[in-house]
């Protein structure tokens, strides 16, 4: 009689049934086939005929279909096999817990990283169909710049691509407010009247602005949270709110969840671009550039078409207003929550973060692979039985992948929940960078994009961590097992382990190099010569909206006298920009007589300063003189240039006495002095050309001034008495950004420090995971050779020699990982140079320290992992296996 089992099993294979259940069905159907065969034989059928008939019945398609329906399993994770997976994982709960914890930690890091990435670069503002919204970036030879009101108006009226065009400013302000019994500060911004309409949002109460932008209005729209803070009464519409002695009518409330178009800040209210008559000069001032125009594409118009259309308008503008728009053009991009100049920075920071997060994830994956390999070894008996019962290799792989999937999903859920909770809490954090600035809103909460990416990561992880162990352990060596041999730990598996060691060491090296480089970068930044010698300085920005333009000079002079009277203050000076904090747009200059040559025009920043500015800061005078009292509104305009600008135009000559043309106003100015170079806005900027104008000659331009105050001791101590004195002398004045020189440097270093903390924090995590993995890997591969070690010891090998041999093997893998890691890090540092200041591709000291640290950690980890096995009793070791 034929054996029906094999035949039946082959037919059932496609159903992927639970092995126990399948075995039972195979047995039962084989019994039936036997009975049928015997029955046919009794009816005098020939053996061949009986076999053919029985086989025919077994081949009936209804069998497979019927069984498939009867044993149906809806989805892979909901199948009846799922409990088996859980049972197996709970049986090896320690290994599972380690895998889940390492992966969950890595998932927290990746969800956090993805969320930051998403919040900074991907998330559009709250608007209807945000993908149809485009920002207009004006480009000029000096770089990209915001638009002036006349420019915005021109584009709005002349473009044919947008159904609507609005504008807002990334600059936001803080102002005191009073409403009924509520008092406090509001964060507000000015927007064009059609801002909300173009965004496509609907008011929660009242209406939005309407009418003409060029007619000043005192109207505000409240944000939803601010409305709630004021009581949440819909009848608020039509009431007035007071700010700085002015009354603003509340016309409406923005919808819930709408926080504006500026990342990082939660706005309380929006006002119109112009609120009073005296503000009207910005309407025609083509140099007052503070607006970001954006538009909504008309249906059917593409981004390229819109850009081409706007470029035509830009060419027309350049033709009509060569003084302001010569060589200017436009570029369009998606409407983002970050201003254009920050996007590049945010991109660099985000990608760096993502890179480190990826390393953390890889380190965790290597650990999970290692643990799954261990799991597979521990379960080889089970695999053998399954294979012996006829389970195909594909089915074993699916089963193993399913277990890996469960680990990944579990870790993913834990990691996502923790990260979500943490990012939710971050919302309440609201750090204030310094007094006067609105608190930062760190809204990195994950949205559907992050959830989608996380799911994708989990799927990829499942494949990545599951496939290697699955491929290895699904080829059980039946014959070897029957002979009682140790079948796992053969050369193939040992090679896999060694690859893991190389990989883990490589990751450990990479993250250490990353942390080292970002640390070096901060060191480099701190060593950058600032160019000015004074360090005991306090900066404070003071403005007073109540003072009329004609009286502003007197206002500052009076305050200056007050501050000078504070005991311990040695000198006071005023400037539009304080050191390392450049204000205002760039300017263009050319030497007199070379104006017609476009290449001779230099784009640079400038500062309106008082006469004693250079002596207070300790900026060396290289030639000529400082500004003096003779430099007045009525005397010829004098400028002082820095060394770089002097060398650019007059490399071997004395520039003092020569004249330059200034683009704005087409003025001719005379150079009276040359001062040393310094840092103007950031520590990592190069040697920039720079020009100083005398504040005394520009009383109308030099209106918003910062005090720079030298003190005779630690400047921090002088801040309270100085602020106090200003408050007493000018109660209505707005004091903002009061900082010491060191605090200003810290502020400039904030970003590099954040990068360092992120890189080294995540880096440490990855390093610990990599070393834990290294320990487990070494421990495992030594344990597999327990029998061999036992025999060697029994044959007289010294444990010291054995340890040496094991460490030598470990050192080869560690060394290879180190070399690969350092090689990769050199490639990496050419990219990271964009984010980290001053980093050379070969940072010898960092690489040396990392190489030593990694080797030491790698070898001591290997030693610790191998030691217990070397110490075992040889007899026991041999018997055990």
């Amino acid at each position: 009689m034929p054996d029906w089992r094999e035949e039946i099993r082959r037919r059932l294979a496609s159903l992927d049934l639970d092995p126990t259940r399948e075995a039972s069905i195979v047995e039962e159907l084989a019994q039936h086939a036997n009975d049928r065969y015997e029955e046919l034989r009794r009816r005098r059928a020939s053996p061949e005929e009986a076999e053919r008939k029985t086989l025919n019945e077994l081949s009936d398609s209804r069998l497979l279909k019927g069984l498939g329906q009867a044993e149906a399993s809806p989805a892979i994770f909901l199948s009846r096999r799922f409990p088996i997976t859980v049972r197996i994982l709970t049986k090896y709960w320690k290994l599972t817990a380690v895998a889940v914890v390492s992966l969950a930690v890595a998932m927290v890091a990746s969800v956090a990283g993805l969320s930051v990435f998403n919040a900074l670069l991907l998330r559009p503002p709250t608007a209807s169909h945000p993908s149809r919204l485009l920002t207009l970036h004006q480009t000029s030879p000096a770089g990209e710049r915001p638009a002036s009101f006349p420019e915005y108006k021109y584009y709005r009226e002349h473009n044919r691509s947008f159904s609507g065009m609005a504008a807002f400013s990334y600059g936001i302000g803080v102002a005191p407010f009073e409403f009924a019994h509520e008092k406090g500060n509001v964060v507000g911004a000015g927007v064009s009247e059609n801002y909300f309409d173009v965004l496509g949002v609907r008011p929660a109460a009242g209406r939005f602005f309407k009418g003409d932008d060029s007619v000043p209005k005192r109207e505000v729209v409240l944000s939803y949270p601010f409305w709630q803070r004021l009581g949440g009464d819909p009848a608020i519409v039509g009431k007035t709110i007071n700010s700085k002695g002015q009354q603003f009518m509340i016309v409406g409330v923005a919808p819930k969840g709408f926080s504006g178009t500026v990342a990082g800040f939660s706005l309380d209210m929006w006002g119109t671009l112009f609120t009073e008559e005296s503000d009207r000069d910005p309407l025609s001032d083509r140099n007052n550039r503070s607006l970001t125009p954006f538009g909504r594409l008309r249906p059917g118009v593409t981004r390229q078409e819109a850009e081409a259309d706007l470029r035509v308008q830009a060419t027309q503008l350049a033709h009509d207003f060569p003084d302001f728009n010569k060589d200017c053009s436009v570029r369009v991009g998606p409407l983002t929550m970050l201003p254009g100049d920050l996007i590049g920075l945010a991109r660099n920071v985000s990608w760096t973060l993502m890179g480190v997060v990826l390393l953390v994830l890889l380190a965790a994956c290597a650990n999970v692979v290692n643990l799954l390999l261990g799991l597979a070894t521990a379960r080889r008996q089970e695999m053998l039985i399954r294979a012996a019962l006829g389970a195909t290799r594909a089915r074993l792989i699916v089963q193993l992948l399913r277990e890996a999937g469960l680990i990944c999903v579990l870790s993913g859920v834990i990691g996502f929940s923790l990260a979500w909770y943490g990012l939710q809490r971050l919302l309440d954090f609201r750090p204030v960078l310094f007094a006067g600035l609105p608190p930062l809103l760190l809204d990195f909460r994950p949205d559907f994009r992050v959830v989608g990416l996380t799911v994708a990561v989990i799927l990829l992880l499942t494949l990545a961590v599951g496939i290697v162990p699955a491929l290895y352990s699904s080829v059980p060596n039946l014959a070897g097992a029957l002979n009682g041999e140790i079948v796992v730990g053969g050369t193939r598996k040992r090679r896999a382990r060694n690859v893991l060691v190389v990989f883990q060491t490589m990751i450990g090296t990479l993250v250490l190099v990353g942390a080292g480089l970002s640390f070096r970068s901060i060191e480099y930044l701190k060593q950058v010569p600032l160019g000015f010698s004074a360090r005991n300085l306090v900066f404070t920005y003071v403005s007073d909206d109540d003072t009329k333009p004609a009286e502003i000079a007197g206002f500052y002079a009076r305050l200056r006298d007050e501050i000078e009277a504070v005991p311990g203050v040695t000198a006071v000076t005023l400037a539009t920009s304080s050191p390392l904090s450049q204000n205002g747009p760039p300017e263009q200059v050319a030497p007199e007589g070379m104006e017609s040559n476009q290449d001779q025009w230099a784009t640079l920043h400038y500062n309106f300063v008082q006469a004693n500015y250079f002596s207070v800061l300790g900026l060396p005078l290289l030639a000529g003189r400082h500004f003096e009292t003779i430099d007045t509104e009525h005397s010829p305009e004098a400028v002082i240039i820095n060394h770089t600008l002097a060398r650019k135009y007059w490399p071997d000559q004395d520039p003092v006495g020569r004249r330059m043309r200034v683009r704005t106003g087409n003025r001719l100015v005379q150079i009276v002095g040359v001062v040393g170079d310094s840092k103007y806005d950031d520590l990592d900027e190069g040697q920039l050309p720079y020009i100083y104008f005398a504040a005394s000659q520009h009383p109308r331009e030099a209106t918003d001034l910062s005090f720079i105050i030298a003190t005779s001791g630690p400047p921090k101590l002088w801040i309270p008495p100085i602020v106090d004195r200003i408050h007493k002398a000018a109660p209505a004045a707005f004091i903002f950004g009061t900082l010491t020189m060191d605090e200003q440097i810290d502020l400039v270093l904030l970003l590099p420090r954040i990068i360092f903390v992120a890189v080294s924090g995540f880096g440490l995590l990855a390093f610990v995971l990599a070393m834990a993995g290294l320990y487990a890997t070494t421990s495992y591969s030594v344990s597999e050779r327990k029998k061999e070690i036992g025999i060697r010891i029994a044959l007289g090998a010294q444990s010291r020699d054995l340890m040496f041999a094991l460490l030598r093997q470990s050192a080869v893998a560690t060394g290879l990982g180190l070399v690969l890691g350092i090689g990769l890090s050199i490639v990496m540092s050419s990219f990271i140079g964009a984010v980290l200041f001053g980093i050379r591709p070969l940072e010898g000291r960092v690489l040396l320290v990392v190489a030593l640290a990694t080797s030491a950690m790698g070898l001591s980890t290997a030693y610790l992992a191998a030691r217990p096995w070397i110490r075992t009793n040889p007899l026991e070791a041999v018997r055990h296996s």
Partner: protein
Amino acid sequence: MHDIVSPILDRELKKGSAELLILSLLESGPRHGYEISKLIEMGSSGVLSFNVASLYPLLYRLEKRGWIQGRWVDKPGQRRRRYYQLTSAGTRVLGAQRRNWKAFVTAIGRIAGVRYA
């Protein structure tokens, strides 16, 4: 007309009745699959026949619903076989299906003018 209707009716009747048949056969005691198929074939004088492809999916479905329960039994001198037994839920279902079947047959009979003894 007869030629077209017959196979369809046949299939439907079989489908509905097959469950009833199996449950009834198990009422008197546990039986294995081959025995069930033989009993149906003999009891219906060959009109109804179940082969391996139609019987076992049905048995598993009934088992999954909890109406019958199969277990492997070793009997001395015989092969190890899987015997199916009616559960208490199965007994209740059998009672209900019998009532429905009777009502159905009576109704058909009235309309078609067929009388049973």
